[in-house]
């Protein structure tokens, strides 16, 4: 099971004066069980890229297959595979629309043609998973919740589709640290407990470095780096800077200390790592 993008190119407005190629010959395999981070500055092609993962956009040239099925086909099978890729957009709470939380979460599963009992089952399970008590919240309006809770309802709506792959575009934007932590704990649980493959698009390098097992950097519609976050942040700083992407603040701090002649490792992804690196400083041999 995997999503395979084979040499895809996407051009907006073909044949118009506004014709613009947003992706140039991108090839990438998202392996089952991965936690893939995607970064790139505004206009790098990130959004165009992720919209190919579940067939919201079809490539101008090249193919996208999910579990071996070309998802641009108009077959039942292709449709089924597109449903296997859940998509949580930026500010997903803006897309809530039903009168009650339970109805909002049920919207997707209902469209899958499941029976009422099955839909109810999915809703209960999804709410449990995102930490919203069914009896307390099911009949409430989603619009009276806090920002973080609304976002959890939106994510529950995608989880209720029982996806194999989950694409999240800036899921923590606009949330305070508590809200951010809540959302990420949930995403990590989906990844670990349900084995869902996660594709996380974010500007927040701290979040990416903390969670992603693999990192892809996009620039001008091309993949410019693809590897482990630690390796990319430490060994490709210049390349990152060239494409306008920031390294995590903790990496910046450690690099500054090194420039100041303090012998500390820069192989850190968190504040705790940094404290450890300082305490062990001077003892590591490069």
């Amino acid at each position, binding site marked *: 099971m995997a999503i395979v993008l084979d040499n895809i190119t996407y051009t907006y407005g073909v044949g118009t004066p506004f014709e613009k190629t947003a992706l140039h010959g991108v090839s990438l395999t998202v392996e089952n069980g991965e936690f893939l981070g995607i970064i790139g*500055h*505004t*206009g790098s092609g990130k959004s165009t890229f992720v919209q190919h993962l579940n067939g919201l956009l079809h490539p101008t040239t090249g193919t996208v297959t999910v579990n071996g099925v070309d998802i641009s086909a108009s077959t039942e099978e292709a449709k089924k595979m597109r449903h296997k890729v859940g998509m949580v957009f930026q500010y997903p709470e803006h897309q809530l629309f039903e009168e009650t939380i339970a109805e909002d979460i049920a919207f997707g599963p209902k469209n899958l043609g499941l029976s009422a009992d099955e839909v109810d089952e999915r809703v209960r399970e999804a709410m449990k998973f995102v930490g919203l008590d069914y009896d307390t919240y099911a009949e409430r*309006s989603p619009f*009276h919740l*806090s*920002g*973080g809770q609304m976002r959890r309802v939106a994510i529950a709506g995608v989880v209720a589709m029982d996806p194999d792959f989950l694409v999240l575009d800036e899921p923590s*934007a*606009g*949330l*305070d*640290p*508590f*809200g951010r932590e809540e959302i990420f704990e949930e995403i990590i649980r989906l990844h670990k407990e349900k084995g869902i493959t996660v594709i996380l698009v974010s*500007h927040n390098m701290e979040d990416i470095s903390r969670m992603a097992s693999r990192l892809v950097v996009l620039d001008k519609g091309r993949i410019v780096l693809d590897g482990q976050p630690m390796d990319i942040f430490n060994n490709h700083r210049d390349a990152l800077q060239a494409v*306008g*992407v*920031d390294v995590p*603040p*903790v990496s*910046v*701090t450690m690099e*500054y*200390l*090194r*420039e*100041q*002649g*303090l*012998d*500390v*490792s*820069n192989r850190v992804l968190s*504040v*705790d790592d*940094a*404290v450890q690196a*300082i*305490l062990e*400083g*001077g*003892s590591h*041999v*490069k």
Partner: protein
Amino acid sequence: MNEKDIMIEVNHMSHIYSDENGNDVHALNDVSLSIKRGEFVCIIGTNGSGKSTLAKHFNVLLQPSEGYINVCGYDTRDEEHIWDIRQHVGMVFQNPDNQIVAAVVEEDVAFGPENLGIPSAEIRKRVDAALEAVNMTEYREHGPHLLSGGQKQRIAIAGVLAMKPDCIVLDEPTAMLDPKGRREVLETVHKLNKDEGITIVYITHFMEEAVTADRVVVMKNGVKLHDGTPREIFSHVDTLKGLGLDVPVASEIAFKLNEKGYEIGKSIINNEELAVGLKHSKLADQLLDNHNVGAKTISSPTNEDVNAARGEGTH
């Protein structure tokens, strides 16, 4: 302090509304706060802490339920002066796409002054100056929809500037922007504060932005919890973390090392201070006394001397 030096005076102000069950909710609870002319004040707090509600009182989008607030010397309850206050205090919101009304950048910036009935020659002057101040002159004839998020926010700021405000209130202006856009906006706001003396009230979740303010106000559950310089506020790492707020990386590292008994200094808020703190701590010997092959540069000459004396390539 002279009364004229005060931009905003909040006096025992509460804002109360009814929830869906008819219960009273205190979005703001007995808040008192005074903001001086020319100050750069950051307001931080978790979602639901009341910081946006507070800010909306500054240009009379909301009225207090209890207490009062004076802005530019006018009591906001005095309806006669609402428009005076709004001319003096401009607002910039989170989503740049919700704040742009025209199809051309300079027309968008001209929208505010046009509504004031200002002569067109004067509007021309104000628009040019405002675009210059946010460094967007070259985009004046562009369509706003083709700009980046950071550029759009700078246009929104220019639109406020064209009203010649004394104070700008920005409610999470960088929340939807990428790192480059965030820097652009923060630099622009600082420039307006420094060069034009405009009072800035800046709401943010980003602590690296808050450390650049003159003063930081911490809100929690509608109450003003702390009010002080960034150094005073961010030295309380455990308190802030307990409130669910971030602290700058350097502060947190220093805090954790202090906790372990390495005296790094209690009020570190940036990387420079962390480096100095480490060099004067018990860890200095260990961290400085090695030939540091991994580092790009070694700035301390004594350190180089030591290494030179020991000979190259000790590892």
